[in-house]
């Protein structure tokens, strides 16, 4: 059981802190001959698989490296377009490494503000009066837990669906935030948190929560 990552979003929807605690590495490298039996396409400055799942390569996986050399966005290391490069039979056999694309810091900012508005809509569309926004969002591979403080700061933790004790963790993170970010004289409110003590204490809180989760302590 693991905790994947932590996000802190200010009351305007801006991401002020993000920490990846555990990033699973699911990458597959495979050698292909011409023609390629996968359909690739450009998506968000990346080349992703759009059709043809096989040998652990899934739809949505991005091309990470070709012949052992990391790609740069949608271009190969020497600046050629990946799709053009793979169209040329003389480049085969070719070894391609696929995996889930890592989020860039810009994408993280975008996703944080996206959650900010989803949170608000979740509360507006409520069939019951006086509902909060989204507190927990569940998928088959992770659960996202969100705690909004009275001042509007959101603490978001993404964890394994079976991980327990997340409510306590969210309150602990709030405490760590109050103690180490807010009391830091160099920190201005609503701005990104760059504070070593906050980092350290957050990490130890995550470690404690991960250990406690294994015993199924009440959440």
């Amino acid at each position, binding site marked *: 059981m693991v905790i994947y990552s932590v996000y802190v979003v200010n009351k305007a929807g801006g991401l002020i802190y993000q920490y990846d605690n555990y990033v699973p590495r699911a990458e597959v490298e495979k050698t292909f001959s011409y023609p390629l039996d996968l359909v690739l396409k450009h998506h968000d400055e990346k080349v992703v698989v759009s059709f043809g799942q096989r040998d652990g390569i899934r739809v949505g996986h991005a091309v990470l490296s070709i012949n052992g050399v990391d790609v740069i966005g949608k271009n190969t290391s020497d600046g050629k377009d990946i799709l053009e490069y793979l169209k040329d039979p003389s480049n085969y056999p070719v070894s391609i490494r696929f995996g889930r694309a890592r989020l860039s810091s810009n994408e993280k900012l975008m996703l944080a503000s996206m959650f900010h508005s989803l949170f608000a809509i979740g509360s507006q569309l409520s069939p*019951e009066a006086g*509902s909060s926004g989204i507190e927990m969002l569940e998928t088959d591979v992770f659960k996202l837990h969100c705690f909004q403080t009275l001042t509007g700061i959101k603490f978001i933790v993404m964890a394994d669906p079976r991980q327990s004790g997340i409510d306590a963790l969210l309150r602990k993170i709030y405490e760590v935030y109050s103690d180490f970010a807010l009391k830091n004289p160099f920190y201005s409110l609503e701005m990104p948190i760059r504070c070593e003590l906050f980092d350290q204490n957050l990490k130890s809180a995550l470690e404690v929560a991960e250990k406690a989760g294994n015993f199924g302590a009440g959440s």
Partner: protein
Amino acid sequence: MTVHNLYIFDRNGNCLYYNEWNRKKQAGISKEEEFKLMYGMLFSIRSFVSKMSPLDMKEGFLSFQTSKYRLHYYETPSGLKFVLNTDLSVTNARDTLQHIYNFLSLSSLCKNKIRFKTLYLFSNSVDSCVRQEYNLTQSGC
């Protein structure tokens, strides 16, 4: 246990069916606008979840909960979207939604020759299906 309301959307975002059983608060906008907002939220959640996920997903988005209600989501491979709002005591409504889908698609959609896009589902058959699943009485819950 309370069921608040049920939305069924087709893959283009048209609301095929809406019914409410025990809804205490309206959204404060017209139904048309509410369907758009709901569909837009689901669409965004789907894209949000697929980007945020650290691993490859099979089912994707299943449900979310706030302090007062829980929204259950089920999407068929053909893009029909079922959204059921209940109170927090209902932990998993996937089977119910699948049941409604089976029941509906067989009984009224597939056998119907009218174009799917403009079809409004037969209200009373869905209503009785949900009432059966959750033992709702006529007066609400």
